[in-house]
């Protein structure tokens, strides 16, 4: 996979989440995503950014414009050095929340993207990768 453009954004405050949504939307527009696809990737970014902040204690986003053969898309990698997720299967279950959310952020984002990878180690941290192809 080729990376055509790259940026790193902090995920440390509620304002950062707003900034991330704005940035992801502008990259999606630049990549000529349809309105529906823009909305999907922006919404997924918002979910994972909030998890990174609320559960991961803050972290960062690597935003990339990628290309694989003829396909172009956006890859978003959120990482934190938080407590990690002890039971990934359970975290990915619709409706499961350890806080007071709807428990749909992870599972919903997975449905909003073409590729979704979740890596987490208790005590080490969590990395979530989202890819949406155009």
């Amino acid at each position: 996979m080729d990376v055509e453009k790259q940026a790193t954004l902090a995920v440390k405050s509620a304002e950062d989440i707003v900034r991330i949504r704005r940035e992801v939307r502008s990259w999606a527009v630049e990549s000529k995503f349809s309105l529906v696809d823009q909305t999907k990737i922006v919404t997924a970014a918002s979910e994972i950014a909030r998890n990174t902040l609320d559960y991961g204690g803050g972290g960062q986003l690597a935003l990339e414009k990628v290309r694989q053969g003829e396909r172009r898309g956006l890859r978003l990698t959120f990482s934190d050095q938080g407590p990690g997720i002890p039971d990934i299967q359970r975290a990915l279950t619709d409706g499961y929340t350890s806080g007071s959310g709807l428990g749909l952020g992870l599972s919903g984002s997975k449905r909003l993207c073409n590729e979704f990878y979740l890596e987490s180690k208790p005590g080490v941290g969590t990395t979530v990768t989202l890819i949406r192809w155009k």
Partner: protein
Amino acid sequence: MPTKKATTIPTLVAAHGKQLLESWLGLQKDSSLVASGAVDTATLHNYSERFLSEFHKALASGRLDAIGGADWAGVREFLSDFSRGMAQHGLTPSQIATFVFSLKQPLFALLSHEFKSDAQRLSEELWQATLLIDSLGLYTSEAFQKSREEVIIRQQEEMLELSTPVVELWEGIVAVPLIGTLDSERTQVVMESLLQHIVTTGAEIAIIDITGVPTVDTLVAQHLIKTVAAARLMGADCIISGIRPQIAQTIVHLGVELSVTSKATMADALQLALRRIGKTVVDRKTPQAASPAE
């Protein structure tokens, strides 16, 4: 690499603090900070003195190449404070950073004097001083930009609180158009004011219009769900209007169940609301044409 000699900058600053302050102040007399009226000379004197005192402390205890470290916390705090104080005055980031950059000249003068016979050493020291002052200047302009953003955000919040957007559209029908980002305390403010209006007007129906909301994620959805539930407890039914097609699709993929009546536009929602409270909207022509027949 030659062995790196410890820098003498800390010792020099400690020994010539007073002289440094005086020549620095002399340089700043005509700076744009003063010219713009943002600070008077007494305040500038105060700021400069405080900076040098923190600078001195940091130098004494810390490293010159790590201004992000704990030793430099006092300097950073001062610079953030200073930037915040300046943010109200419409200055540019470079004007603010000049405060720090202008320290270079007197600092370099001290060094040149100290090492006039050791060019090698002088260039090393100058290099260290440059790196240090540059990083402090950069930090200042970043802090300034951040404070300005904070000022703007605060003003927006204040504006939003002032303009309670809830309107009574008809007896028994209130509406609130939601605009912008919903995940701050703002939602709380708007939602509370909606519930308050339901109580004071005794409204039976509340229309929540989300045409102006760019993203509906699980947090926004949760706010909506909670508001609908609270309104129901107060005896009002909610209608959500303005869900754009792309938002509708996204909500479905997220798996969120809003379980509330929704309409494409505010006008459709109003029509439904009127029907529910027993009023109908008809074309003006129709009753006129029909009345003679009665």
